[in-house]
């Protein structure tokens, strides 16, 4: 068994979450602290406050928004009196049918795959931390970093809607309007970004130290 080195918390130190300055911490056992980092002014905490509760709340909120985001229309095209509404999935299917496979794949990954993956990965990480799992610590840290980095790309569909709305402006001939799903989908993206930010990957490693002692 490897002897684990101490963590900053064991040494009575707190690393600033923004600039990584090591600051002296409060005696162990006291959780609430309101100290600020002397260098950059960020709030200092050994572990993010209420990390698990906050992440769960945001994950659940995002799951709720995810339903209207996929059921309601994303765009509504009015062309010569005919009205056609498209959801996220029907937009993907349109590209598949018209033969633009690469574009269909890009939209599918950004708007369907990534948000779902993010919700599943965050739930998995939260459950594994709550069960104090000690398996694959390194892989789970990496999984968290990837999830956090990739989440913003889901905004792609919102930007596409913004551009289409601006471009297709032909009065009675053709206009595109943003549908209610756009708002819900944007909420999913923003909320999952906050959920990933409020999760503290150091909690993954805390399970290891508890059992090694």
């Amino acid at each position, binding site marked *: 068994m*490897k*002897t*684990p*080195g*101490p*963590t*900053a918390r*064991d*040494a*009575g*130190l707190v*690393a600033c*979450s*923004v*600039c*990584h*300055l*090591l600051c*002296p911490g409060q005696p162990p056992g006291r959780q609430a602290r309101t100290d600020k980092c002397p*260098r*950059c*002014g960020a709030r200092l905490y*050994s572990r993010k406050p209420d990390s698990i509760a906050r992440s769960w709340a945001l994950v659940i909120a995002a799951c709720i928004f995810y339903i209207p985001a996929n059921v309601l229309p994303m765009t509504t095209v009015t062309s010569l009196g005919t009205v056609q509404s498209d959801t996220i999935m029907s937009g993907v299917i349109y*590209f598949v049918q*018209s033969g*633009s496979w690469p*574009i269909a794949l*890009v*939209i599918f990954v950004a708007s369907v795959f990534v948000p779902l993956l993010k919700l599943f990965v965050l739930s998995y990480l939260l459950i594994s931390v709550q069960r104090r799992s000690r398996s694959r*610590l*390194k892989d789970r*840290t*990496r999984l968290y*970093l990837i999830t956090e980095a990739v989440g*913003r*790309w889901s*905004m792609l*569909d*919102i*930007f*596409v*809607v*913004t*551009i*289409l*709305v*601006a*471009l297709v*402006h*032909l009065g009675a*001939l053709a206009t595109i*309007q*943003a549908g209610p799903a*756009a*708002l819900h989908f*944007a909420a999913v993206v*923003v909320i999952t*970004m906050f959920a990933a930010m409020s999760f503290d990957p*150091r909690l993954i*490693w805390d399970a290891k130290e508890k059992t090694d002692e």
Partner: protein
Amino acid sequence: MISGLGDPRDIVKRIPAMHLMACHECDFLQKIPQVPEGAAALCARCGTVLVRNKPKSFQRPLALLVAGAILFVMFNTFPFLTFKQGGLEHRTYVVSGIRDLADQGMPQLAALVAFNLLIAPGLHLLAFLYVLVPVSLNRRAPGMFRVFRYLRLLQPWHMVEIFMLGVLVSMVKLAKMAQIVPGVAVYSLTAFIFVMAAASAAVDPHEVWERWEDPR
């Protein structure tokens, strides 16, 4: 592999704090060796990059930021995409879509897009200049470390590169319906993405943070 640093309680007395660093992903406390230029130090426990030694010059990122500022003004003022169909021509700007979303009764969405596309990148540029100009002159500006912190918090919300992918998707989507002509703003936006990415990559954040202890 992982060697403990001994008893955690008196670790601070034995090893000077400037050589110690706690991994920001797993809180593992470790000694950071001298990192040769171009190399990086990884966390001994979870493998996250802790320190990357980049060239110690602020000339290059500053030059890139000045170019970024010019490009920022350009993509906001020049025509963006033009829609052509038969005799019809409809010219748009980067802000057109944001204005149209607000007109269609979605001010929240318009505000979010404006934040991701214009406000966050603009603030990013200004904050970066506010920190790098004094640092490169070996001076301090009031609150510059605080500003540098905001800069790092702002980073994930700056989504110009995702918008650019959106431009490509929209052009393919409308290709059958009309001719879409990219304007100067499209090219300036592309250049802006590369210039800002290069500026961020050229700055070692620890090099800025270290000025706090040692104003040279």
